[in-house]
């Protein structure tokens, strides 16, 4: 019996110590799967930690969910890509100190032989219209993410209601997984270029449409308003925001390349 107690105490102490983590010098950033899956954070955050001593933990979800996490006060800052939604949330008072950080663009990817012939389209809306007309399968993120928001915007511009058609499928998954599903189903999908470049080696797909200004993808960063959530670590979040828009931070983003040497994001803080 005594041995049992000893063992139990030892186990408990062990677990207590290993589960303890230094809460003080960490901040939590809610961000998007596109930023995480591209590998940007793995490259960026160690640099920031070296400079500031602050560790940034990242919860990667869709843009919509990240904004929601921030609104609830469960993160200290968010880095997302849906400028309209961001500005609206700032206006509502949930966030402060919003800054543009970087951009890349969205591209439409699909089976290389391009059954809907969207390669010949002039604009993204035209490409979408062709897909709808041909009723070729299209995988939507369906998760209120930045890419989803952009995709819905394009459908709206094209004057098409895709929901409810059986060629239009909502995955409800992150960017990389959505690409994977599109790959399996030989379908089209809209993706950010960063995730595409990071994952494309494992896919039998290619970019079929790109370059329309409507596909511009702006990433922004903002801190949770400490007046709404007094637990939010605003000061440290601000240190990160200031770092990422600083020359050093922007240079680091500019020097981030995927394993094939592609530049994934272009810094554009002003």
């Amino acid at each position: 019996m005594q041995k049992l107690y000893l063992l139990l105490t030892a186990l408990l102490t062990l677990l207590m110590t290993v589960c303890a983590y230094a809460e003080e010098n960490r901040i939590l950033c809610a961000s998007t799967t596109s930023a995480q899956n591209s590998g940007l954070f793995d490259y960026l955050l160690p640099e920031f930690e070296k400079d500031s001593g602050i560790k940034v933990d990242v919860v990667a979800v869709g843009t919509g969910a990240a904004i929601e996490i921030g609104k609830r006060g469960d993160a200290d800052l968010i880095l997302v890509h849906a400028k309209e939604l961001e500005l609206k949330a700032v206006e509502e008072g949930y966030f402060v100190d919003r800054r543009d950080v970087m951009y890349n663009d969205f591209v439409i990817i699909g089976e290389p032989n391009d059954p809907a012939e969207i390669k010949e389209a002039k604009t993204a809306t035209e490409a979408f219209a062709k897909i709808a007309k041909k009723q070729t399968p299209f995988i939507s993120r369906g998760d209120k993410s930045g890419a989803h928001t952009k995709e819905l915007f394009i459908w709206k511009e094209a004057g098409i209601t895709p929901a409810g058609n059986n060629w239009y499928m909502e995955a409800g998954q992150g960017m990389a997984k959505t690409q994977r599903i599109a790959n399996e189903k030989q379908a089209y999908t809209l993706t950010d270029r960063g995730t595409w470049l990071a994952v494309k080696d494992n896919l039998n797909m290619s970019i079929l449409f790109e370059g329309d200004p409507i596909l511009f993808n702006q990433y922004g960063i903002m801190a949770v308003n400490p007046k709404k959530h007094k637990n939010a670590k605003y000061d440290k979040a601000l240190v990160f925001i200031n770092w990422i828009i600083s020359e050093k931070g922007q240079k680091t983003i500019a020097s981030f390349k995927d394993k094939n040497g592609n530049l994934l994001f272009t810094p554009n803080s002003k």
Partner: protein
Amino acid sequence: MSNPFLKAVELIFSFDKQLFDIIFLSVKVSGFALIIASVFGIPIAVFTAFKKFPLKSLFINIMNTFMGAPPVAVGLIFYLLLSRSGMLGFLGILYTPYAMILAQTFLAFPIIASLCHSAIVGVDPLLKQASITLGASPFTTAATIINEARYGIMSALIAASGRLFAEVGAILIVGGNIAGLTRVMTTAIALETDKGDFELAVALGIILILISFTINFSLNIIQKKGKKELI
């Protein structure tokens, strides 16, 4: 594309730090949850087995029902509770290992309480009689019965740990799958598969399968040992 399986084996045998950090975190989170759930679950099982109290059968029914609680739903409930805007938001433990331990404890508790209760109640009543006729006090008699239920109790713990290690829904929601902080085997596999980086995913998959096989193998052995009673 090189063979992810070979690379995974290479990762395992080179004791890759990232890989083993994830494995250890899994063991810590699920292990701790198991210990807490046992510390509460076993005494409650003992209590319900030996004492009469109002609404006892209702309590047992609830425990049995919660045994099959969907982890995702449990995760959601704890997410809403632990969120800064939730009832337990003041704890500030959402997206930390503590939240994961809490959610997993909640998943393991009914399994342990319910299965241990069945194990104790299932002990041959002759043994209670034997214990009394041999001069044992009520306390010793209870201890003897619990001891006789030991294989059933162990089975309960193993069954619970099997569920915890394989579980992804609850820990993903309350843990957030943060690299180096709350990323455990199951959530890491999901993420790495998304990214198409199969090496780490396969390596973790191998370990996870090994763990789950070991768990089920020992469960089998223990259940056989306990069955000797019926021979």
